[in-house]
């Protein structure tokens, strides 16, 4: 892991979300599904964000402004700077034969980079509204649905599922695809195993998502 002060290159709206693009500096983009701790200006703690896109010389993060930290990140403008720590945690395993990407809401954030790494496999994405569904454009080869249709209705059998989304979606996905790789989410203070804050109980076992995840096998 490496911590570096990076410059903001741009800040683009994608539906209700913001795609924050920063210069890569000496930071390794890591494996899809790994995450970075982004300094949130004016806040005490950084915020964990998975990498959305990794064009040459850049790191791009898809952010939903839901609180003071994410709002501060979405308000960053070109040439402002922020500290970035990463890459952190365990990403998706890419040695799958029939990949299917499954995403829900802001959980589609790591899928564009994952799709690129896997050569553009099929994807199914679910959103709560047409406005939110604008983010579906970031994922190639995607079938998009909007509530009340749930993304789990679009998952065919026999696929190697790689999923990221809200917890109820992940629970439903692992019911359908017991071998799925699931990217979970939890509030984190540090991202590197120091605070024990991101512990989640999965199948009766407590796991620190930042060091054992965020991508875990469903079964």
């Amino acid at each position, binding site marked *: *892991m490496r*911590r570096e002060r990076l410059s903001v290159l741009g800040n683009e709206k994608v539906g209700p979300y913001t795609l924050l693009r920063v210069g890569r500096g000496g930071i390794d983009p890591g494996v899809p599904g790994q995450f970075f*701790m982004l*300094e949130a200006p004016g*806040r*005490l*703690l*950084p915020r964990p964000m998975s990498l959305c896109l990794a064009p040459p010389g850049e790191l791009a993060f898809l952010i939903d402004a839901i609180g*003071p*930290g994410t709002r501060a990140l979405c308000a960053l403008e070109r040439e402002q700077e922020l*500290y970035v*720590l990463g890459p952190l945690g365990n990403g998706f395993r890419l040695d799958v034969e029939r990949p299917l990407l499954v995403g829900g809401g802001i959980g589609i954030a790591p899928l564009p980079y994952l799709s690129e790494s896997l050569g553009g496999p099929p994807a199914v994405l679910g959103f709560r509204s047409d406005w939110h569904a604008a983010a579906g454009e970031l994922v190639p080869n995607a079938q998009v649905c909007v509530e009340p249709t749930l993304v789990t209705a679009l998952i065919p059998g026999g696929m190697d599922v790689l999923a990221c989304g809200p917890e109820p979606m992940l629970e439903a996905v692992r019911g359908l695809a017991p071998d799925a790789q699931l990217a979970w989410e*939890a*509030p*984190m*203070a*540090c991202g*590197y*195993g*120091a*605070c*024990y*804050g*991101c*512990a*989640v*109980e999965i199948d009766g076992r*407590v796991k620190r998502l930042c*060091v054992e995840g965020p991508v875990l096998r469903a079964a």
Partner: protein
Amino acid sequence: MLLNASGCLDALIAPEVARSFDAFVTKTVTPLPRDGNTPVRIAETDVGMLNSIGLANPGIDRFVTRNLPQLEKLGVPVWVSVGGFETDDYAEICLRLDDHAGVDSIELNVSCPNVDAPVETVTQIVAASRLATRKPLWAKLSPAVPDIAEVARAAQAAGVDGLSLVNTIRGLKLDGTTLRPVLGPGHGGLSGPALKPIALAAVASCYQATAMPIVGMGGVQTGLDALELIAAGARHVALGTVLFADPDAPARVRAELHAAVAERGWNSYDDAYAVAHEEELSVRTTS
């Protein structure tokens, strides 16, 4: 000496961060393994953060057989934080650690805000621990008492070698929409900048009351924060919450501390020790 605050660093996961301190302090070890509290466990507040980890740890057996041999290879002195729910818990762990050369010091956590408080007093816990080990003993105290100096004097009388000041203070954060607690267990321990004036007051009071060596901690973000704790009467300083945002903080705080000392014309931070208690201003001025 610069240390980490207990519970704010895992040396087995981030050994390079642990090595950037003068000593590494473990998460609190209890007799039996503990998974810790129900998530959600952390929440940011406007001037700090709340945590309710709940003393997650492998228990003394696995700590001694699995963790300690790895910690001994770190290359920095290891302080073990010890916790429990009754006096015998503390004494038992101190006894288990006493023969381990790799344990430099023991910090008695008699103040975790996230578990039910030990039923016996600090005096009893310290006295029983003192009988169980020859290692240097430090008592980590809560500032959430009417008179922390009184607790410090009791710990001193019972045989501690120093004080760790301060632990977090119990706080509550409600979700702005649901008006329910954000943290799984409800309340948590408040740390970060909000704690700094409380830590300064505790260090100053306990310095005056006991003249014991003190590890000062609470809201240290910069070298100047560290210098203020030293001026209040701390011999050593520990970093906690700042590590979560910045694992490079030890080197930065150390450099800032040296610069702040040099700016005042001092040779080392020892020159700043307890100056807050001197009547006359000892800082050089240009006017």
